[in-house]
């Protein structure tokens, strides 16, 4: 029978690297969202960089001007819901070590993930079918909620993934020697 293996990985240094890479990545991602309008307002070379940041985020967000927060008279890199999803991911990642050890691979109950996802879907669907129009507040709150819970499922997954890849590569190398 298939069994879920141990809840902690042995290589604590590797899990630290995975966590801090994820933390840095979420911080850079969030900074880019706020740098897009800042660079657009500076003009010149910065404006060109800003346009590439907007193009990059257009792959992950509709960038609807009416549904976005503005800074320096330019919209942020993504819409209000996405901004709060990424703020949530960053804050969730920052809080993660307070709840779990970095080499943890155990997930919290799936209920939290499903509840956050269903609330977000309800906010989208009720607006789409015209029953209850969503607002900046509802989009931000539901976005933050799902963003906040996601790192608690993603980080253990990445820690386990890199630990297994690391062990696999090490065993292959020792086999060759």
């Amino acid at each position: 029978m298939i069994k879920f293996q141990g809840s902690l990985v042995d290589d604590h240094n590797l899990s630290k690297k995975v966590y801090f890479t994820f933390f840095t990545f979420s911080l850079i991602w969030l900074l880019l969202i706020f740098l897009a309008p800042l660079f657009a307002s500076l003009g010149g070379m910065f404006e060109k960089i800003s346009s590439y940041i907007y193009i990059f985020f257009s792959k992950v967000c509709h960038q609807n001007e009416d549904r976005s927060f503005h800074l320096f008279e330019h919209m942020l890199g993504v819409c209000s819901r996405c901004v709060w999803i990424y703020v949530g991911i960053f804050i969730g990642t920052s809080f993660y070590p307070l709840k779990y050890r970095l080499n943890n691979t155990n997930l919290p109950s799936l209920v939290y993930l499903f509840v956050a996802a269903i609330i977000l879907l309800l906010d989208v669907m009720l607006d789409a079918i015209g029953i209850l129009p969503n607002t900046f507040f509802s989009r931000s709150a539901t976005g933050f909620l799902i963003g906040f819970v996601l790192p608690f499922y993603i980080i253990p997954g990445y820690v386990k993934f890199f630990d297994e890849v690391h062990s696999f590569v090490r065993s292959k190398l020792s086999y060759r020697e």
Partner: protein
Amino acid sequence: MNTPNKILPIVTGTIIMTMIATIPIINLINVFCCAGIIVGGFAGVYTYWKQLQNTGIMLTAKDGGMIGILCGILSAIFVTGFGVLISLFSDINPMLDVMKAFDDMGLQMPPEMIQYLEKFSDEFNQHGFSPTITIFSFIFNLLLYPLFGSIGALIGVSLLNKKNNQAL
């Protein structure tokens, strides 16, 4: 017992990611933080998990993550390729639509932006697609698809392993 071949899970995940990204209206799923790519990664891992049933082999994060990354890389190639093909066969110059949309909204575009749009528009008129936009799109796709694909796949590994543990 031999590990099942991973080609079917990778093909399944790639097809789902590519279809969601290219079919009009359905591709709106991806504006929700690349949800379609996450679903594709999950679908790839789910297919692999189904293959592993009754073999006694455990679904590992290594295999799941690799399936997600590979689905992402292949989808990035296919989505960019389909984008070029659609531009070539549709005879539409999207840059003209962008300029018209700005005009309709009464927005004043900075001269540099007009210059860029005209450059891209010329590329569309000359080749039927814009090589500059295609290259940038390909680079961005190569970053985003494996990233979100692996997230979907790793969430899938965790969920499916949890399901197995509950079944025990």
